[in-house]
């Protein structure tokens, strides 16, 4: 659905009686003014993401006195002491959308031709979550205390893969 449809009206609709170039008969047509989000140009820590080291993704049941940034039914993003290691449930910010999302702790990999997922697993000491049949795609899990960014870098530099991508539990896409 077109974004225009879902954007809330603003005061500008009252002035939308004026002719618009977009429609030959725009009388009172919905033409709300957009609120444009400024983009944070901060250099990403990996991919298109900035690590929010003072945020953590935790079960709602574990929320104590921390400030809650975002909450769903069973999970929440809360403020925490600065983390040095990037692991599962570390929170990152997408620099394109500005949205927060947690890491799964997984690294998704496109293997080079002739390389198997087991090779990567044994050579780098990673847990293989799944190797997808009929493809060169596999998912590895970093150990709980390992820094995922460092693990991904090690995978890339191993020469075994074409691509290694840290999995962020978000959807970057929006409805059309």
């Amino acid at each position, binding site marked *: 659905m077109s974004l225009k449809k879902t954007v809330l009206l603003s005061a500008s609709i009252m002035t939308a009686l004026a002719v618009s170039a977009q429609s030959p008969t725009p009388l009172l047509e919905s033409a709300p003014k957009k609120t444009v989000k400024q983009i944070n140009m901060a250099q990403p820590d990996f991919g298109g993401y900035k690590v929010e080291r003072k945020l953590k993704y935790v079960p709602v049941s574990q929320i104590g006195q921390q400030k809650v940034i975002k909450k769903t039914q069973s999970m929440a993003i809360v403020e925490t002491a600065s983390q040095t290691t990037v692991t599962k449930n570390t929170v990152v910010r997408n620099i394109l959308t500005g949205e927060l999302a947690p890491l799964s702790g997984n690294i998704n990999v496109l293997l080079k031709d002739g390389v198997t997922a087991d090779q990567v697993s044994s050579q780098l000491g990673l847990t293989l979550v799944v190797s997808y049949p009929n493809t060169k795609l596999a998912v590895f899990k970093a150990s709980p205390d390992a820094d995922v960014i460092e693990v991904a870098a090690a995978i890339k530099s191993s020469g075994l893969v074409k691509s290694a991508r840290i999995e962020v539990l978000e959807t970057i896409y929006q409805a*059309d």
Partner: protein
Amino acid sequence: MKSLGLKASLISSAVILALSGCSDSNKDTAPTAKDLSLANMKQWVATPFTLPASDADNDDMTITFSESGSPVSSQNGVYTFSHGMLEQTGELAFKYVPLTAEAGSIDYQVEANGKTASAQISVSHIVSDPLANQQWHLRNTGQKAYALSDEMKAGLVEYYVANLGYTEEQAQELMDQAFAIEEERLVPGEDINVMEAYAQGVTGEGVTSVVVDSGLEIRHEDLQPNVLAYRSLNLNSDAVDHTDPTNTSKTGDHGTSVAGLIAAKGWNEIGGRGVSPDTSLIGMNYLGGGAKVDQTDFLVHGFPGSGISTDENISTFNRSYGITFPTAIAYSEFDEAVQSYPAMVLRNGKGALNIKSSGNGFIDGGPEGSLCSDNGANALGLTCYDGAFEPSQAHPFYLSVGAVISDGSHTSYSTAGANVFVSAPSGEYGRWSPAMVTTDSMTCLNGYSGFFGGQIAAWTNFYGEAFTRSQYPFNFPGHEDNAQCNYTSTMNGTSSAAPNTSGVVSLILSANPELTWRDVRHILAETSTQVDADNAPVILDVNGSDFVAHQGWIENAAGFTFNTQYGFGRVNAGEAVKMALNYSESLGDLMATDWIGEGTVVGAASLDKDIPDNNADGVTHSIEITDELTLEAIQFRFDVSNAEMQFGDVNGNQTTAGTDLAIEVTSPSGTRSVLLASKQALMYPAYSFDAGFQPGYILKDSVMLSNAFYGEPTVGTWTVRLIDTSDASFVASDGGDNGLGVIGFANNTVPSKLEGVSIRAFGHNAQ
């Protein structure tokens, strides 16, 4: 009037049956005609029958038809009555197609050797869907689909009188004129021709479409019969029931409306009808909703764990979503590997199709602010966002769909690009111009229709209940056709064009499950309807020379017509199903060349070729392909730099280097395709999922797909030309209300550089 597949040779106002040439008038007996009752038929579906007429003497019989005393003559062998259409398929063999749910009758008279007999065909008990007659995309009769209503006009007149100082006569005259202009766009016949598909007995059985979206209300009254039980996925990590992707948003669920366009159950006397009304549905709530489960990107492509097996008859994954951001996003081999899985692995290797909305960025998108107004794109009719910005639209494993309105022409918003493969109806906003009538979250407490629908709630808050009700009569609670608010009349966007295409693809694969995903693409390219035939080119004056930024329709060397706004045209279900049922092409194995090119994109030194500012000659680069293939798609990869392509300069301006860049390609056969028209919203430096923004680059590992060369030979010289089309600087009329906060756009003081270019062709062995 469309033919229902009958021979066009039956052009007469009466049917002459030459059963025998022998007669003797002295002993002649009169012919006989008996009454016939046709009942329990499906609306729009043909019912064959034999006319109970005879002549004992075997004389020639002439049959004439009438309704309510008025004779009805045939056009191309089709008799059209107020309630249905009659076609002759044999001497006494006919098909009747109910057009409405109303009962009716047809009088017929048989004449033989001067003697006559009369009888009646009664039509009753038509199984229908009450909203189907408003679904113009399925069968366009010029209906308004709850737009341009009498209530709307009366509400506007009242508003103008009360608030804007108009007299009632002035307001009425203004609205009469405005409505008359819009009503000219309600053009009968401008639809996707589903009736002809149904007439061939194809309604979508045996295949399943996966709706990857914001949700799918699996218990919706008009979807539930087609929803495969316990097969949908709730991908939210904290979901209680992972088999239920129902979206509980009060303001509407995009996915539920998308699903209805594909496969709202047909002929159940409830709601409307999907394009493929007997196709099964699986829903996955990929969009929105917070943190997702692990491996979501794999699951939404049908990988193991999604519950989809490799031998299941999945027709499509519908993807009515995208990224609308004013930058060129780099291509990713990883994403290609994921996104190609449905096509390359599912259906035992025959493949399922990813049907992708092309985007709603023709006019604008968001962070670019007023750029496309200020640089002239909007006024010229050039696309603000190009499909080339988004890498998932840069490979043949996603099929991009543009959107058209009720007269067949381009919508105000549909993103154009050489990647667009076909187009489909979606309409405008459902008020001044029809949108889609489709399923909506059930009850008046959820959904686009109902008290909390975004538009309804906002307008009611602003204008009050009465005016809002008058402007959106169908979506406002209380409309007699939508008493439970389970349907909406304002769904639109390329989000609607994609599911309408998913429906057509489902019909194709239901008609012939042996077809591969590439066969389906071929059928769509062959059978889609060329709409807006007079679509005009857009020619830019570049320092005294012409540059054709938009070509309108072109015909390539293989005979395919193509347009960056429409692809190969609007999908045509009837013709596509007909070709599917009689398919004889053999495309063989899919072949792909290596990436062939020079410069940084193939790991070599930069080409370092200047793209001269404001110069229509630009810079050209030629690439030779020696592999002999018949093209099915071709990709072009670019690195184009400009040191000024940052996040704005010290004066608060952004460079025009991105918006001035145009790219065209000419094939060995001489066909020209525009990959970037210029004046597009390339406002930010290039971006990569793996590396973030790439300051200093307009394009970095940017891949663009062109379908314009479909069917042409690959061998020969491909010529790429890059042009900077302007030396103008201009003020941002948004005053800095844009993503970069810039107040203007300054012409680039240094030329952009082509650092590398390569191409990769997909196709089959030339025959």
